[in-house]
């Protein structure tokens, strides 16, 4: 029998390699993660990072060191050390039926965001030279039925668009009425048989269906525009990360060879066509993409002598995530009051759970224990916790109301760490760590709250 030519590691990691590729896996295997506090949540996260092959771990547990619990203060101090060292920091906590995650990373760049529903990059509104001449090579009117029915819809739309432009003063269809008229124009192109009945031409149906997206003007996404106009992009130094160098190269491309547009992505969706016509069309886009990538590479060379892989087909989907530091979140001067008060307009929003977690930390600072750990404490701690809630709201001048029910519930939790909630959080945390290390997919920004009671969640930027 023919044996599979794969190492056992590739076999073992096959399912995850499909998600983030060999280069993503390499990043994981070169990573070193530090876990602080081997709680249920911590060990779940650890297990979920060991399994996909994270390279190295260091585990620090407060109980062996000095018996001190890791409270709020330690987190802030640790946070500021890691912020200065530009080391990404993920805080996780399971408290009763509530899960909490806070991501602290100064500037996290993402080239491969793997967007779910991306628009195609077809350039029908401004066809490049090679696409134009390829379209020209088709003469729909003189085609035999077989060829006519297996012409890719992109060609069909392009041909009829040419016709429309010549009849409408070079103005493409803009509103619904015009687009409908354009669709009709295409429908009229369907071949008719001897009895004047339209033939079954699925490729023309596809063309009609795709008119809306095909007519989307080629545009640079706002997120990418912002990045291009950012300070990091304008001031490239020898310290600049390769992400910014590449972005600068793309900016220069846009201003020269690109004529105001990004490099061509080079992929087209599948469509009804015979193999040859489809492949020929696909190759037109592919070759243009390669050309554009080469041009960007030249710009990169001019900016810096050597940089890593240039990935132009992701140009539309570049992302940067910048989290506020813990110091900014906690300081009275920079607390995000607006975010908190606007969410608290709905008193049962997950924001109330965040405030309760802050209140509970305050309780710990005052009493050196969490509320309601022992049954006899539950009742009396409710009023003590309420005082903490009020002092928290007062200190930050937050004009919000927290229902007594939540104060009662958080005393009831008694700082329990139920396994199922820890497991959910451990899975989520591990996934975010993998995103940070691989620079693929987009991490959250910056506070995630999970409510296991209602099985709902929310993300806040605090």
């Amino acid at each position, binding site marked *: 029998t023919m044996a599979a030519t794969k190492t056992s590691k590739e076999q073992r990691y096959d399912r995850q390699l499909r998600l983030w590729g060999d280069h993503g896996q390499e990043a994981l295997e070169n990573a070193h993660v530090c876990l602080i506090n081997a709680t249920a949540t911590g060990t779940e996260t650890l297990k979920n990072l060991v399994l996909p092959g994270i390279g190295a771990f260091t585990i620090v547990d407060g109980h062996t060191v000095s018996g001190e619990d890791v409270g709020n203060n330690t987190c802030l101090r640790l946070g500021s050390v890691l912020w200065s060292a530009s080391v990404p920091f993920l805080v996780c906590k399971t408290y*009763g039926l509530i899960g909490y995650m806070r991501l602290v990373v100064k500037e996290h760049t993402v080239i491969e965001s793997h967007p779910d529903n991306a628009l195609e990059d077809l350039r029908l509104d401004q066809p490049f030279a090679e696409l134009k001449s390829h379209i020209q090579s088709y003469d729909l009117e003189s085609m035999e039925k077989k060829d006519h029915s297996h012409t890719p819809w992109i060609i069909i739309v392009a041909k009829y668009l040419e016709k429309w432009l010549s009849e409408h003063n070079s103005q493409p269809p803009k509103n619904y009425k015009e687009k409908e008229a354009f669709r009709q124009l295409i429908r009229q192109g369907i071949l008719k048989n001897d009895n004047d009945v339209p033939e079954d031409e699925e490729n023309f149906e596809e063309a009609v269906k795709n008119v809306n997206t095909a007519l989307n003007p080629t545009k640079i996404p706002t997120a990418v525009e912002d990045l291009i106009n950012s300070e990091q992009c304008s001031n490239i130094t020898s310290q600049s990360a390769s992400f910014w160098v590449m972005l600068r190269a793309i900016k220069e491309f846009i201003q020269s060879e690109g004529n105001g547009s990004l490099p061509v992505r080079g992929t087209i969706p*599948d469509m009804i066509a015979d193999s040859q016509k489809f492949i020929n069309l696909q190759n037109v886009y592919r070759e243009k993409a390669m050309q554009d990538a080469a041009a960007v590479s030249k710009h990169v060379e001019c900016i810096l002598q050597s940089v890593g892989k240039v990935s132009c087909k992701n140009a539309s989907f570049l992302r940067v995530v910048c989290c506020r530091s813990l110091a900014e979140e906690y300081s009275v001067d920079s607390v995000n009051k607006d975010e908190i008060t606007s969410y608290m307009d709905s008193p049962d929003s997950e924001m109330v759970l965040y405030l309760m977690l802050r209140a509970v930390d305050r309780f710990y600072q005052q009493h050196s224990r969490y509320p309601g750990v022992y049954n006899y404490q539950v009742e009396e701690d409710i009023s003590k916790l309420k005082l903490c809630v009020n002092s928290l709201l007062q200190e930050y001048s937050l004009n919000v109301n927290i229902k007594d029910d939540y104060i*009662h519930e958080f005393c*009831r939790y008694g700082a329990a760490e139920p396994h199922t909630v820890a*497991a959910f959080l451990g*899975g989520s945390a591990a996934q975010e760590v993998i995103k940070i290390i691989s620079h693929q997919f987009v991490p959250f920004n910056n506070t995630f709250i999970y409510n296991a009671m209602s*099985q709902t969640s929310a*993300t806040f930027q605090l």
Partner: protein
Amino acid sequence: MADLDEPMVVDGGTGTRCEWEGRWNHVRKFLERSGPFTHPDFEASTESLQFMLDTCKILVIGAGGLGCELLKDLALSGFCNIHVVDMDTIDVSNLNRQFLFRPKDVGRPKADVAAEFINSRIPGCCVVPHCKKIQDFDETFYRQFHIIVCGLDSIVARRWMNGMLLSLLVYEDGVLDPSSIIPLIDGGTEGFKGNARVILPGMTACIDCTLELYPPQINFPMCTIASMPRLPEHCIEYVRILLWPKEKPFGDGVGLDGDDPDHIQWVYQKSLERAAEFSITGVTYRLTQACFSSLFDSAACATEVFKIASSAYIPLNNYMVFNDVDGLYTYTFEAERKENCSACSQVPQDLHFSPSSKLQEVLDYLTESASLQMKSPAITATVEGKNKTLYLQSVASIEQRTRPNLSKTLKELGLSDGQELAIADVTTPQTMLFRLSFTS
């Protein structure tokens, strides 16, 4: 989690109860304390914990990515009586997430190894493995469980399970007896996306009510695969659907096994050849494999089991989806029951066809309709007082004998207006009754 050679701090052992101080403290807080958000029927007591530890019986279906997580979560939450059903054996590619298994376990049945691991690691927990298909069991087996949790990788299996629990429901004078309801908690994932749902058979939306939420598998048109491939996927499908049955590379009757590297290697090589014919690039080993399976992992289900078993909180009502591609996104909604659901509505299903329609048209409708999505339905009817099999695919000799019926009209087959057709399929444990309604 390395294999332990030294004994654990606490004594393990199947079934022997070994409680230490504070072991269930985190669980107790939810069972023994009242609170403002608990279920209206909840009463704080020390007995609930005993119920969970001693009496509550949970069935976990699947010991793969979801199943391993579920078993761990349930065992660590205080459930001691768990059964697990899985007919699969362990493969190397499982080891990156099905953490109850080690390289030395490859080839052994998943259910057995999973049970062994949990039983030896979590004192007092007793997991009973069943290396079988879910269809190998009948009502007497399923009836013994309080809650059933599914970590399945096929919609067909889910639907079968759904049908089984619906068949257990007891109605007295048209009123559902609540004690006959066995809650079904179902989870599924793929890459960075997943979902969890709670199904109370007879009360909430069932699997079939929301069948249209599951997009039908992408099936490329045959003409594309046979003569006009454009994508590498078309080439791989060609080899899988057309070439494999023709060339039978591993012997007569040997089906394609997506987990067998030799099979995949053969498909890969042939796909490359096919692709070269049409100048198509992009066929890789990894893509070839990907065309055969999907991914797995989740934990919200176990929380729901706890809620239902303890009545501590109102369970999820009733469908939660999550997508972690961009940040973390969850969405929770109440899936509604479908009024004429073919599985749970007890409304007789009508089939509207003209008497001159061929049986093949009926067959096509059963398989292609978005709300039925049957796989290989077997159709029988009572004609002139006798039970007649009109068409059955799963037994070769009967398929051959009944195949000519497909091109006969309903009238020719002796069927009349209002006639009942009994239809069996892998998607349901019970035969479904349809009523033929002739159109003019």
